[in-house]
């Protein structure tokens, strides 16, 4: 694939603040969505003639709708705490990839149109008109943010750049200047049921193949069922789990866990996708419509529990937003939400992360492992940003960090942590999250992976780490692509449930 040439950054001891390289990434932008792609999801087909007026108008609406956005645009004192916290800034040196500069692209326009000082004395307060140049900068640099929220951890005011990026993308979509990758995927979810565009019969064929493989490997009939009414659990997982490597190895692991625990479960051909790119583009209506598929599937199948597979942003949407969006979890009060509430078994967390399910079963002694089966692996864990900074697992603070690690320790003998400051709530993004996992942004993705790759190299050198475990489909795909740029084997990334799958004892548990 003829991508533009670029140089992979050299790995340095963390943290290294790069020399500024103005406009180093000014050429980086994703393909613009075509009129066909936009029309399919109700956005203007191409940049509308009166875009300036419309964009400022949409910003005004968002300011009214989301008080957080206004607070974030008002509160920044330019202290600089965020400047060296973004993996894209660290990897590219482009000053516009400092979180504060990314915010300022919108803050200038906000001040010009929505503050008194900016209306009267624009130059004194850094207020700017929304010129075509500024709009293009929005398009470029709001697609050089993975909405990972690492910067917000270090901001003394808690300003969340991801929300500003989301607002930026929402405004761009509202004037017909959206991104092809995300918008095409959203169209596929509506039309076919998942981000891949995998139709029901193809999914059924793939699952049948997985059943055959597992039987061949283990001698046990583990089922990977689809659309089974009356199953206890509906598993919603990223469609990459059906399609890509290493993703599918975690799918195999989920099935083995349910099998070993004797829990009946099903996938749904209607809700064959956990991911929700509506969040990435900051569009509430898309976010909600995509989430509602899962409620419809749960009601149709009559399940008692809803479990989410290894997908970072899906777990954010599920944990933080499903309650009011869909009534999975308490909050919504429309008739379907109430119906779903009465259907679900509230002795279990609703929704639950697959890691919560597995860890609960391990603690109750319902699963048995042969940990030595993973002895060829020396494992480290990469916290995925949306799980780490936008959700939780279990009943105690930090459960989203501890539970995946506890599972790994239960199924593998060799585990090492990467450097503090690169994990837990300060984890570095894989470099491909938030809707930038597309080929034309490869340079951004490789450079943005640099901080994570540096931390990985340390544990690879010191401890011989050869397996990077993660619980996110984007992380898995991104690392598979970028690891070779840093002289790592692409096959060293995999899922937590891939490790579970390797070590779990099926059949007789004696």
């Amino acid at each position, binding site marked *: *694939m*003829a991508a533009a040439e670029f140089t992979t950054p050299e790995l340095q001891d963390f943290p290294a603040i790069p020399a500024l390289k103005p406009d180093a990434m000014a050429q980086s932008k994703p*393909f613009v969505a075509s009129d066909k792609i936009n029309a399919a999801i109700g956005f203007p087909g191409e940049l509308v003639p009166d875009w300036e007026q419309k964009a400022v108008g949409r910003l005004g609406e968002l300011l009214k709708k989301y008080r957080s956005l206004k607070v974030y645009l008002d509160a920044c004192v330019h202290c600089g705490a965020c400047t060296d916290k973004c993996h894209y800034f660290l990897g590219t040196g482009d000053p516009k990839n400092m979180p504060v500069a990314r915010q300022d692209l919108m803050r200038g326009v906000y001040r010009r149109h929505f503050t008194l000082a900016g209306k009267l004395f624009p130059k004194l307060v850094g207020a700017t008109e929304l010129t075509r140049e500024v709009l293009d900068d929005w398009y470029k640099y709001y697609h050089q943010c993975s909405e990972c929220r690492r910067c917000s951890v270090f901001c003394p005011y808690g300003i969340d750049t991801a929300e500003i990026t989301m607002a930026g993308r929402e405004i761009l979509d509202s004037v017909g200047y959206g991104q*092809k*990758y995300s918008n*095409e*995927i959203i169209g*596929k979810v509506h039309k076919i049921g*998942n*981000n*891949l*565009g*995998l*139709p029901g*019969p*193809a999914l059924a*064929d*793939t699952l049948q*193949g*997985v059943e055959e*493989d597992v039987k061949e490997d283990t001698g046990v009939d583990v089922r990977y069922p689809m659309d089974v009414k009356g199953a206890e659990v509906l598993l919603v997982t*990223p*469609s*990459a789990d*059906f*399609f*890509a*490597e290493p*993703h*599918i190895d975690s799918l195999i692991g989920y099935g083995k866990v349910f099998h070993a625990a004797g829990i009946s479960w099903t996938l749904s051909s209607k809700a064959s996708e956990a*991911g929700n790119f509506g969040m990435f583009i900051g569009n509430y209506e898309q976010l909600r419509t995509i989430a509602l598929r899962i409620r419809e599937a749960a009601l149709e199948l009559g399940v008692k529990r809803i479990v989410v597979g290894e*997908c970072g942003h899906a777990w954010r949407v599920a944990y933080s937003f499903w309650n009011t969006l869909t009534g999975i979890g308490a909050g919504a009060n429309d008739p379907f939400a109430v119906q779903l509430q009465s259907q679900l078994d509230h002795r279990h967390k609703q929704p639950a992360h697959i890691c919560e399910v597995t860890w609960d079963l391990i603690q109750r002694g319902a699963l048995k492992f042969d940990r030595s089966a993973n002895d060829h692996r020396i494992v480290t864990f990469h916290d995925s940003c949306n799980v780490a900074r936008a959700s939780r697992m279990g009943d105690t603070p930090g459960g989203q960090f501890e539970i995946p690690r506890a599972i790994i320790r239960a199924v593998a003998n060799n585990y090492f942590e990467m450097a503090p400051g690169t994990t837990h709530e300060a984890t570095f993004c894989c470099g491909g999250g938030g809707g930038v*996992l597309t*080929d*034309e942004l490869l340079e951004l993705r490789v450079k943005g992976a640099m901080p994570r790759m540096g931390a990985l190299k340390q544990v690879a050198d010191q401890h011989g780490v050869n397996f990077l475990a993660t619980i996110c*489909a*984007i992380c*898995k*795909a991104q690392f*598979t*692509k970028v690891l070779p740029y840093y002289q790592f084997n*692409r*096959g060293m990334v995999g899922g937590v449930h891939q490790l579970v799958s390797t070590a779990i004892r099926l059949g007789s548990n004696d």
Partner: protein
Amino acid sequence: MAIEVNGKTYETDEEGYLTDINEWNEDVAKLLAEQENINMSEQHWEVINFLREYYNEFQIAPAVRVLTKAIGKKLGPEKGNSQYLYELFPYGPGKQACKIAGLPKPTGCI
């Protein structure tokens, strides 16, 4: 965007994927492969033909696992793995092979 083969013009998208899958033929595939710096061998054709057969049945490219299994059956178990496919299609068997086969680009978190 477009490419020209034997005097005929074929439309592609921004990324070089053929817009109309039905327009595909072997000469088009050869040119698409050339643009990817791939010299089509018999082994490459095995993969491309399987992709097209699978697509005709299911309207999607096969999962990597389905593909490796099928290739393993046809060409021997030592070739039924993704490493072998990466040797044939270095950018990644999913996307690069789909492009040469004239199929739409697989999307999502892959």
